[in-house]
């Protein structure tokens, strides 16, 4: 079980701050949360980076979701 935290922009859609996640791959995890919050579809979620325990991953498609990890969607940063 990992815990996903929503930032306040996503919270407007999910109306909750955090949920427990059963999946252990990114792909299952996206399916899992879209099942719970269908309105997240189209929220740009898939364009966001995923932070797993503080490590920001811009292209998380193939990552595993470790047990007991903390997950955050983060806006992608580019820089100058």
């Amino acid at each position, binding site marked *: 079980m990992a815990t996903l935290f929503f930032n306040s922009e996503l919270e407007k859609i999910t109306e909750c701050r955090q949920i427990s996640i059963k999946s252990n791959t990114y792909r299952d995890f996206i399916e899992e949360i879209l099942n719970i919050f269908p309105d997240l579809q189209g929220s740009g979620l898939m364009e966001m980076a995923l932070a797993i325990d503080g*490590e*920001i991953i811009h292209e998380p498609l193939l990552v595993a979701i470790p047990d007991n990890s903390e997950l955050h*969607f983060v806006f992608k940063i580019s*820089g100058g």
Partner: protein
Amino acid sequence: MSEAKQYKYIGQRTIRPDGFDKVTGRANYGADLSLPGMLWGKVLRSPYAHALITKLDTSRAEAHPDVLAVAGFEDFPSVNAEAFAAGNGDSGMLDLARNILADKKVLYHGHAIVAVAARTEEAAAQALQLIDVEYEVLPPVMSIEQAIKEDAAVLHEDMFTQGLADTPSAPSNIASRMELKKGDVAAGFAQADIIVEREFSTPTVHQGYIEPHATTVRFDDNGPSMVWCPTQGHFDVRASTARLLNMELGQIKVVASEIGGGFGGKTTVYLEPVALVLSRKAGRPVKMVMSRDEVFRASGPASASKSRIKIGAKSDGTLTAVEASLYYEAGAFKGSPMAPGCMTVFTPYDVENMWVEGFDVVVNKAKAAAYRAPGAPQAEFAAEMVMNELAEKLAMDPIDLRLLNAAKAGTQTLYGPKLKEVGLVQCLQAAKTSEQYQTVLASGEGRGVAAGFWFNIGGQSSVIINMNSDGTGTILEGSPDIGGSRASMQMMAAEELGIPLDRLNPIVTDTEHVAYNATTGGSRTTFATGMAVVEACQDVVAQLKSRAASMWNVTSEQVDWQDGSAINLAGEDVMTLAEICAAAEKTGGQISGRGNINARGAGPSFAVHLCDVWVDRDTGKTDVVRYTAIQDAGKAIHPGYVEGQFQGGAAQGIGWALNEEYIYDDNGIMENAGFLDYRVPLASDLPSIDTIIVEVPNAFHPFGVRGVGETGIIPPLAAVGTAVSDAIGLPIETLPCSPPRVLKLLQEAAK
């Protein structure tokens, strides 16, 4: 990662491999390439800040005997407004197209309208005079205040504010709003013994790279077309150009020339797609070079900002709540760095209750481009000014106040995740014991301290290392070298392979010789491309070991690699890299190593700057008398170029704080579009800039590297602003602290 690791090259001040060419004038920059039969392209630009184009007739220019081609917005075939309106496109591409050649409406003074290519520069300039354009002039919207007024002229009829609770019914100049929150700020402020709240503004500034944008292109029907240009990312130039011209990536080869500074401003395209259209139409190579005036008017300024900051603290200095409203000017098209501004503004501090809102606002100025840690300097300037005011009101040392609240490993950021190991506390401690902080101020002097935070990024990098039969090797990389990165690639590879530096030649290749590399930006190059170099070296070493194994008739597992040699664990034999390469012909051909990665785990870099100034009360002129930049590099591969990044960032931040600003007249026309009137710091304006490199390793990088390029521009704004405020005894809310503005503050206070 073992702290005690002794390196042979990492951490040394080596001579950069591209140095000889750069000190002798042999290195070729953007404007240095000419091709046989080449034409010169020039751009007709808008004389108004905001207008509809009611008539555009290029026939007289086309009839000019020396003119061979004319290009306009309709030459971007894949980008047409209807497709985008129907939702089948990427609105970013449409904006990009409209920015580089206007579509029926001009949105800033200097906005490109059409381009011509002619046999000589003079003929091209004459042809521009022959283009007939009529305009319906609209009121210019030149500031955030003007833009957000209910009755403001609207730049884009199809822009409706995103991110509001209710979908708006009328178009607006506010492209979007975002909000981040954590905890309960109302409760936090209720617990505070003291609250400081203040509003700030920062001006439009330019990255100010000394080399203007330039390109030379050759369209080719039968093979890849060639684009030569100075850019931070030639793979992204290729991608944008291909999208705009409906070409395949493989039909365009972009060669990155040497680049004369970018700082974020050379991460987009202005001339390249236009030049390629002209070249295609004319059937000849085309060269285009912006004048300095065009660079100021029509390329990447950094966003002006307005902000409001509120910070509450206990009487012992513990922060209880922080709050910010941040407005950024995007220029003519949406997309200011408002989001990174919101995400960075309070990140140096561990506070339970935080609330930030940001607005992306369009105005009739050139489309803002990235500038070193985009969005962060404006936001953190405001927050750090309030932190210093708070320290003063609490009679606390400003470094102690920051140490008490400093973010560290485990701090929950406002933008989401908890921080990993970071070096803010170490930077603050180093600042406190620094020579400058121990120096007692002379009369009339003032001091400012400020911290800065930037994320840094990783991303895609591809590297190939080709070994030669004499044991020399070529490192092919795709990250343009703006500040000495070839040196760090060479050092990391030499370290990893265990061979001398001069055996390895790092080359920044064009888009055909390595796979995609993300743009040099986000302080990513030494981190991410460095990781790709290490991976390519490991690939080389694995092959060297297996070749040695086959020579010794043992398995690869029985071969160890140490200091540039293979060691037979089953016997006594040792073979050097050069010996294995010499025998490679017999063991399967020469060796290439490859590292293609999408690097993750970039380590944030914190900085703390100290600034002492003296203000001339008669003229309002500020002299920076002492300056120290302290920053966490993770690990400094080449300390000289790391210090250079700190110093360069500090100098740009000092310019932003003291002098630099776009000045517009009532019609929205920039009045200071040249280096004489837009004054960047000169050698005589600055003191020596002391540096302290803090090294808290980034566990995700093989050598512990964090990016260092961007953070250094963040702290100077508030360090200088606070120092000036301290010297004159008056609050500073508006940058720059230029002599007239400071003089006015002094005179008003005297009344």
